[in-house]
């Protein structure tokens, strides 16, 4: 009798999980397994391919023409600016809004708005800003008599990467600000007021009470900022297409090139696997770094 109920329950559980598991396994889990397997093949996507062990991984790091090290370096530069410019700025905004200025909600909503706009739209807008002849930036420089500073922003090796980093960092400030603001709002007003009564300045309250409380959120933000930089694709594809001379390639654009320009599906899989490994490794590393600091 009992086992009959168990069987029925088992079937119900299975049926309820089925749609989710089917989607999840067929689109995420199985493909990753295939990626790992194919990353060890010299494979054009259609033939059987030949097993070559870790040769793709070695080539990825040693063959300069693949530009993986350039891509990784660019991602790391972006990660650096995200962690050390974007996040402090977001934290600053969150702390300011935490002090209950007038129109707090309106400011919050406006600051968050760029996050909602498609990166493709943002990219197109920035292309109009960077346009060498008619763009806002160069015309502004002309207007303030700094014509010497004018550049072909996205087409010049010296400025192309910066041209990608600025909009990326700007767009997601609002995202991190929102997360941190939610944390700031979670700090009890009693705690704040007690500290204020003891004569603490608002900055001291933020420094010694609010920031320690929202540290777990800051950790999440750092993880998102770094893994997001590793995964970045949209703005590079729209603004520079990885150019000029492949100087702004990132792992994801290289991955796409492997499929469509070089027919190297095995190497494409290798880049996929490296991305997963790097994302997980950085997430663990950052978590460990925060734990270290606590002790």
């Amino acid at each position: 009798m009992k086992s009959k109920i168990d069987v029925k329950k088992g079937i119900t559980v299975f049926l309820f999980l089925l749609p989710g598991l089917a989607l999840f396994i067929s689109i995420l889990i199985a493909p990753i397994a295939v990626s790992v397997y194919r990353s060890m093949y010299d494979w054009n996507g259609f033939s059987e391919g030949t097993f070559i062990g870790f040769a793709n991984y070695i080539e990825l790091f040693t063959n300069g023409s693949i530009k993986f090290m350039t891509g990784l370096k660019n991602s790391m530069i972006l990660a650096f600016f995200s962690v050390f410019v974007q996040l402090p700025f977001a934290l600053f905004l969150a702390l300011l809004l935490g002090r209950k200025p007038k129109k707090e909600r309106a400011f919050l909503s406006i600051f968050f708005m760029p996050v909602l706009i498609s990166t493709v739209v943002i990219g197109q807008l920035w292309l109009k800003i960077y346009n060498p002849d008619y763009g806002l930036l160069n015309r502004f420089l002309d207007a303030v008599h700094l014509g010497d500073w004018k550049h072909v922003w996205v087409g010049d090796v010296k400025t192309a990467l910066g041209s990608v980093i600025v909009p990326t960092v700007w767009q997601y400030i609002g995202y991190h600000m929102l997360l941190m603001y939610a944390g700031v709002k979670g700090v009890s007003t009693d705690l704040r007021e007690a500290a204020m009564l003891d004569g603490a300045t608002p900055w001291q309250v933020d420094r010694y009470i609010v920031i320690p409380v929202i540290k777990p959120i800051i950790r999440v933000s750092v993880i998102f900022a770094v893994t997001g930089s590793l995964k970045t694709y949209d703005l590079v594809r729209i603004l520079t297409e990885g150019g000029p001379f492949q100087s702004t390639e990132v792992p994801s654009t290289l991955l796409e090139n492997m499929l469509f320009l070089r027919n190297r599906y095995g190497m494409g899989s290798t880049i996929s696997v490296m991305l997963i490994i790097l994302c997980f490794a950085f997430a663990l590393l950052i978590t460990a770094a925060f734990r270290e600091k606590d002790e």
Partner: protein
Amino acid sequence: MENNQMEAVKKSNPAAKVLMYIFLVFWALVNLFPIYFMFTFSLKSNEEIFGSNIIGLPKEWLWSNYVTALNTGNMALYFVNSLLVTTLAIAISLIAAMMATYAITRIKWGLNKLTNAFFMLGLTIPIQASIVPVYVVLSKMHWLNKYSTLIVPYSAFALSMSILICTGFMVEIPYALDEAARIDGCGLAETFFRIILPLMKPAVSTVGVYSYLQCWNEFMFANVFISDSKHRTLPVGIKALSGQHTTDWGPIGAALVIATFPTLGFYLFLSGKIQESFIAGAVKG
């Protein structure tokens, strides 16, 4: 005494306060400017944009740019495509997520925690991780360039976050309701459809807005998987349009506005809900 101190704290540094407001207003302008810029140049002619009036209001409001973008630029088609793909992806992932969440949170069967952890892997896995095999399989099955080419992956990628958010809502529903239903003779499935699902309405909008933004703005999969113009979504369509009209800014501006206004419209009415869904998505992740 205490009151005096409070007063002192509040009154301290009026200059700092002014600075704070100046800064807040400045940053608000920086964030509003792109929308203003996009909207105004979508209504201008090239003469105005390339002439002296690059950031002012349009002298002559050229709505014809919108007609160009919608008709010859195909933005009307891309808009409908995006709407279709996004709506179906949200619906599929929502149904799958609700069912999975029910099995994970309200039926005890031993592997609940493990199953949940398994689904949560999806929060950290980059979308790039599966692109090569999915592309190869789809192209072998001649399944590229269809609506379902995007709908299925989008629902899969929205799933983990949907389950995470649904779990937050579903554990709030008192378990006594399930027991009462059981006593009344409802089976597990019946309890889900008649008791739990109707109570999950608030979760639908939170999950919905999050998935909407993810799908509506998605670019990488759409760019790789869709090469024919009939099935392009807005982000890919905009890229194609800007390639064709490099010298004609007005219609591109119109296309950008067309792709953005539904989101901003939602945001105007649902800003609290949208922010809430982002927070719900990150706090546990």
